[in-house]
């Protein structure tokens, strides 16, 4: 089905933090780093694919053209992609499509944001026709409440405990302590997580990811061009950024309700939405690999409990098996299938449009054997990055070497 492949030949990131600078600055730093890493002159870039900043659940500031200007307007083609947490993946998808169509030869993908403080909030004004606005006005349903409903569900279905969620944070914090680009570098114990204030029962403050400033960038070319350059190519072998399929039982953020089971479906629809699994499956299929081939995974741990859901949705274990996999140490660096070796959102906080690109940066760096000791996955050849966000957006990207 594939019309060819593209390769990551350069990665770059601005460190995550709360720096209070314009997002363009982070994007430009990341982009220059990626270009230097690729050994690519900025003048070679003929397509700039920007992941749009997010304000109030919607595209915020202009991305593609602004990043291009920060690097110098040279008449490059541009695009801006908005898909909430999956914006970075859509920006990669746009670049890939253009490269494979032969319309561009060297693509620069950039995402960056300066996150507002505190809870992510909807746009202001009086906008009752917007479900993102309504969920706050009518219900006060901020994002962590949706994460908490899913976490409680996991406790009910599989007997998960807050101690299991806390152990996810401790694992990711240990990974992040070895990552100089991470915002939070301190190790954290499960006891510290459980002693932190409850935000939305059963989730504590340290179970829920923060919002951060950060920037990430990639240089992409077609595989044959990467070979010609002699770059140790990391191939984007599969990428899916599909919406869910109706009916979706669980109320997806920011909606107030889910869909009822379709008449005649018979069986009850319970548990996590299957669309996250569907994106992973589509990316595996395109790449010609399966979960058994994975050496590492970067999953979107908006909450610690959500990381456990991902284990099952990307096929690392059967449903209900995530806690066992975690406690066996399989998902720790050094284990059978390290998850979030970069430290995950637990160590980064979320810089929404940069995050999906940062996930791919981490996997590409791991596949090139460049991750620092302490989080390096030795001999990694296959990785997957997955995320999920507002309005039914989500993605899965499989990278191979």
């Amino acid at each position, binding site marked *: 089905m594939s019309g060819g492949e593209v390769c990551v030949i350069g990665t770059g990131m601005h460190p995550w933090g709360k720096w209070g600078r314009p997002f363009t600055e982070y994007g430009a730093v990341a982009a220059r780093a990626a270009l230097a890493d690729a050994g690519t002159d900025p003048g070679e870039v003929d397509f700039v694919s920007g992941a749009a900043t997010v304000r109030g659940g919607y595209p915020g500031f202009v991305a593609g053209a602004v990043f291009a200007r920060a690097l110098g307007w040279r008449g490059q083609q541009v695009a801006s992609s908005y898909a909430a947490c999956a914006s970075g993946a859509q920006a990669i998808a746009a670049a890939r499509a253009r490269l494979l169509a032969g319309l561009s030869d060297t693509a620069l993908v950039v995402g960056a944001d300066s996150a507002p403080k505190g809870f992510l909030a909807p746009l202001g004004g009086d906008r009752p026709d917007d479900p993102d606005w309504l969920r706050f006005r009518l*219900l*006060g349903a*901020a994002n962590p*409440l949706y994460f908490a409903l899913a976490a*409680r569900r996991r406790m009910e279905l599989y007997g998960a405990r807050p101690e299991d969620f806390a152990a996810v944070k401790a694992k990711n914090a240990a990974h992040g302590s070895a990552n100089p680009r991470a915002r939070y570098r301190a190790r954290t114990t499960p006891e510290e997580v459980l002693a932190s204030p409850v935000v939305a*029962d059963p989730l504590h403050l340290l179970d829920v990811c923060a919002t951060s400033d950060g920037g990430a960038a990639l240089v992409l070319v077609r595989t044959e061009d990467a070979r010609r350059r002699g770059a140790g190519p990391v191939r984007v072998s599969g990428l899916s950024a599909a919406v869910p399929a109706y009916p979706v*039982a669980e109320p997806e953020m920011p909606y107030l309700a889910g*869909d*009822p089971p*379709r008449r005649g479906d018979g069986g009850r629809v319970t548990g996590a939405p299957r669309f996250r699994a569907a994106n992973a499956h589509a990316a595996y299929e395109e790449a010609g690999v399966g979960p058994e081939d994975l050496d590492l995974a970067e999953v979107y741990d908006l909450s610690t409990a959500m990381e456990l859901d991902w284990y099952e949705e990307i096929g690392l274990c059967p449903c209900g098996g995530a806690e066992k996999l975690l406690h066996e140490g399989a998902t720790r660096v050094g284990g059978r299938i390290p998850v979030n070796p970069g430290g995950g959102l637990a160590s980064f906080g979320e810089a929404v449009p940069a995050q999906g690109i940062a996930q791919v940066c981490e996997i590409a760096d791991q596949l090139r054997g460049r991750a620092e000791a302490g989080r390096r996955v030795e001999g990694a050849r296959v990785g997957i990055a997955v995320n999920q966000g507002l309005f039914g957006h989500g993605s899965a990207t499989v990278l191979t070497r």
Partner: protein
Amino acid sequence: METAHWLARGPDGPHLVGSRCTACGAVAFPPDPDHCRDPHCPGGPTEEAPLPRRGRVWSFTDCRYRPPPPFVPPTDPFEPFVLLAVELDGPGPIVLGQAPPGTDLSALRVGLPAELVEGTAAGPGGERHPVWHWRPLPADGPREEDR
């Protein structure tokens, strides 16, 4: 507010008003006046549909910190509130809603019955909008799936 018609009173008490597709019967909440959301449905006009006023707690949580605007705290200082996800009888859709003020989180369990009661949400000018609340009910003996 524009959402006032999502709530109505029937002979058994207050209930939500969704939409039902006249072609396939699929219901949706909030009501969708224009089209059926099922992509496999040939499509037809939708009509208003009263939704069951009872269901089962599918999940629950609470909110310990004041959410940002446009949420308006009904009390000053902000008081934490309980949020329920209730699967309507039928089975119908899972619908989110606050529990009435004073609901005890520690008494909640997934699977408990719950019923809709009328409540209000605060507006920025001190006004109150009608809104639905989910009131958890005492357990009603072993459920089929528990046996």
